[in-house]
């Protein structure tokens, strides 16, 4: 968990992914399209990290998105927040994007 929090606070936008996960690819694409440059950490063989993410409420564990060091959610949450404009707002606040 500490490692998760540590990595999450290092960048404005952080996404934990798995190389085999194509939904992770989608969320990454969305962030790039928004102009954010998220830090992407591929967590293929780290069971501890996966467990930590799950404990945060991320199910499925990947993709796990953090903005401004705070846990945002999985793909479903990201889509919800994106549609109602909250995601962009958070990204601007975290200085991941400027407009």
């Amino acid at each position, binding site marked *: 968990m500490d490692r998760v929090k540590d990595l999450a606070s290092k960048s404005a936008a952080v996404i934990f992914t798995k190389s085999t996960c*194509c939904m992770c690819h989608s969320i990454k694409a969305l962030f790039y399209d928004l102009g954010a440059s998220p830090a992407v950490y591929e967590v293929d063989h780290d069971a501890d990290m996966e467990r930590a993410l799950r404990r945060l409420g991320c199910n499925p564990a990947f993709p796990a998105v953090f903005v401004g060091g705070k846990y945002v959610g999985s793909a*479903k949450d990201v889509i919800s927040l994106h549609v109602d404009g909250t995601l962009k707002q958070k990204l601007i606040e975290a200085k991941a994007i400027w407009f």
Partner: protein
Amino acid sequence: MGSKSFKVAGKVYTSVADSMPSFIANSNGAEGNTGQSSRVSNVGPHEQSIGFRGGAYNSTSLINQTMHPDLQFSSYEKMLQGQNISQPNQVSNSDTSTEDPDDKIQSFDVDPSNPFMASGSNDKQKDKFPEQKTQRRLAQNREAARKSRLRKKAYVQQLENSRLKLTQLEQEVQRARKQGVVISNTGDQSQPNSGNGSLAFVAEYSRWLEEQSKHTSELRAAVTSHKSDSELRSLVENATTHFNDIFRLKKIAAKADVFHIIYGMWTSPAERCFLWIGGFRSSELLKLLVSHLEPLTEQQLASIDHLQQTSLQAEEALSQGMDALQQSLADTLARDAPVVPPGSSGMANYMGQMAMAMGKLGSLENFLRQADHLREKTLQQLHTILTTRQSARALLAINDYFSRLRALSTLWLARPQE
């Protein structure tokens, strides 16, 4: 071909079945008429050219040579039965024959005094006129052959009738489908697993459509009769809740058969034209709605435009994920192609490959879920931008649009075909 031993008059004949190749069995019916050269191996070229229909009569010389006249008929019969059992697949070949076996046989039946007189054959054999017993045996053989041919004719007739019936049934199903009756394709398409799941969903979807039209009528009546906003609001809420029901139904059905849902097998053909990950594109829908929602304030127009962009962004992202999935699946299956090395390690590789591919297919369900989630959220966001009355009109417009697509599909299916 079994090898059988006969003790006949002090002499032992073994493997008689082999030395008397299938032409004898062939004479028992048209079943054996494959004309395969392998079966002709022991027969002279003269007999071979005649073919095997009624072949026994061409090869009487062989019978005389290999068969002791005192050979018991019962043994002969057993041998024939043994031969017959080993040829279960001969019927189909005869279907393609253009000659009627009976015609050939006719030529042999013509001269009862010399049943071995065949067209263009065996004139040399006149001097080897067989004894009474052989004659009787051969007569019984002919009888058996005749019966066999009749059986075959009856079977073919049965097949023809079944085929006709099948064509009729298929036409009926086509007609029923055109009239809007929902008939699942599970029978004639390669959907081995879609049975229960898809059929159940097809029924659920029909029910959903019926209820949807009820909600729509209520809403339309309320809008045209200018009901109060509060009344409209509850109707709009009910209609929205019902509309969102389809996403829940799709989610459940996708667990049973994701392909059926995601590739729109449940939708009408015209709807399928615009299919995007198992449903409509919210961005497209928003574009269509704007004209139906006027008058709109500047703010509303801007918000709807923004919502459309937002939805499009998410749609693009999901599409990219789907593309990545496709590519990944192709890569997984193409790996180590074309030769899977034999042995256990090869099989292990193959199974590993399959397991990975299975995992990738599993993520299709997630894509469908997120696509439906996007649809639901986008429409939800739309309603926050619109007034109650506008929301009502939006719901009516959406429903009208899809109704027209379905109607178009029905017309299309019922169109006269040349």
